[in-house]
């Protein structure tokens, strides 16, 4: 299994201003960015967001190429939506290919939708690019605290996320190992029709599932022997603190996005 080149969700360590912002502020900024993107309806609105995203990339000191590489897995969706909107929007005809008609509205529409998607992906992926998973889970735990009035434990959510992140590489290695072991016993994961292949994958899934349960059991024991008893009375090594930089970043974002939203509101 090859998981390389899968840019989304990866963290690129660094020491830029953006890297050092409080993860909670970064989550909120990403959220506001996404909301504004869906509010704007004209060219200048998109220019505004583009400049804002570009500004963040510049200050995060990540290469633009790296940030754009996050778009690669989305190429199909981008091309697909572009074509669909290009040909299937009614309005003033621009070019005529017999039964296929490109309209002026279709062209503008597909450009806007694609800009929206591209800016949304690059803008929000900057969050994971510049925030370590540990900080991100800490931030989400803190942001989701208010959900506790509905008896949802933000601590449990954060712990689940941490354990999942911790075990993804472990399970990828394990999957590869079992796959090789089953191949050595004659299993073929590539040949045959769908039903046959599905059946062969069963020989991979069952041992994997058994191992996951065993690991979960042992992990629970290990956690218990380290005095884990849920979120109650638990403290954190890294306490999140909002500094003046976070305050500036937040105020700046709100101001910029507010102006962009007003300018981009009109169709």
């Amino acid at each position: 299994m090859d998981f390389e080149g899968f840019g989304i969700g990866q963290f690129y360590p660094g020491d830029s201003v953006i890297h050092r912002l409080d993860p909670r502020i970064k989550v909120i900024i990403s959220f506001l960015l996404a909301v504004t993107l869906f509010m704007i309806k004209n060219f200048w609105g998109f220019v505004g967001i583009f400049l804002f995203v570009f500004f963040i990339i510049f200050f995060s000191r990540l290469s633009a190429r790296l940030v754009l590489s996050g778009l690669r897995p989305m190429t199909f969706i981008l091309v697909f939506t572009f074509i669909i909107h290009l040909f299937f929007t009614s309005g003033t005809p621009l070019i005529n290919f017999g039964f296929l008609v490109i309209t002026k509205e279709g062209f503008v529409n597909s450009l806007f939708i694609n800009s929206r998607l591209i800016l949304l992906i690059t803008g929000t992926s900057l969050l994971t690019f510049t925030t370590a998973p540990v900080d991100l889970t800490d931030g989400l735990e803190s942001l989701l605290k208010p959900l506790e009035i509905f008896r949802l434990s933000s601590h449990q959510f954060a712990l689940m996320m941490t354990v999942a992140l911790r075990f993804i590489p472990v399970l990828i290695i394990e999957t590869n190992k079992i796959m090789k072991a089953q191949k050595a016993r004659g299993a073929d994961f590539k040949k045959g029709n769908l039903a046959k292949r599905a059946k062969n994958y069963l020989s991979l899934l069952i041992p994997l599932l058994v191992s996951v349960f065993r690991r979960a059991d042992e992990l629970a024991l290990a956690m218990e022997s380290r005095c884990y008893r849920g979120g109650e009375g638990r403290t954190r090594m890294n306490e999140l603190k909002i500094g003046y930089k976070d305050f500036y970043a937040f105020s700046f974002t709100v101001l910029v996005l507010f102006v962009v939203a007003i300018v981009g509101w009109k169709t």
Partner: protein
Amino acid sequence: MIKISDLYYAYKVKNKHIEALKGIDLEIPKGEFVVFLGPNGSGKSTLVKHINGLLTPSAGEVVVDGINAKEDDSIWKIRQKVGMVFQNPDNQIVANVVENDIAFGPENLGLSSSEIKERVKKSLSLTKILEYSKYEPHLLSGGQKQLVAIAGALAMEPEYLILDEPTSMLDPLSRRKILKIIHDLNKNHKTTILLVTHFTDEAVNADRVYILDAGRIACYGEPRETLGNISLLSKFQIKPLAMTSLAASLVKSGIDISTSVLTVDEMVEELCLLN
């Protein structure tokens, strides 16, 4: 001091009643280095799991420094006193960064941020993995991961440290390194060590060796009394030390040396005395 008296543990699997421990009595004074040997299924792991309250006795008592593990609210006090390290390091590391994993225990204890940071640093330097503090665990070797697990237990500042076959998945070099660190903890930091192992050589420098068989303590004593007794070891399918076997063969072929030789140095000394 750990005091276990008349400990029984039984469980049911598919209506079958299985007795894993059948009346264990033992006392481990503070500061000792104790090793548990025994064949698979002899009850070593089950026994040590009682000491930090992961298992509750079916009958009998486990008392750590005067605290009885049976009482519900005392279990957390005992777990803080008795650290535990398991066989597979991959299944005991919780967080996805080394220092955050080591902080997991102290965080559970509700310590202040500065105290946690101090403990993490101390544990990392005790286990000599300070340079890996920011690593993701899956990038470390098996031995390094096990050191992270040990550091995670040490961050709770336990007085007793149980290690349940900590080296059985490691290469010989990592094995030696981990043993050195455990002995160092015992000598210089007065941590009582309870080591469960399959490797006889890991018991040579222990203060006391317990041999378990079928849920009972078959025998115990200093390493020389237990490991040096080949007929005793073979009775419980424990592989004797290389030098002890050699000494036994030499005696068999008529050379008059002590049969309870444990190390190469001792063997050299014995052979020199022959002239």
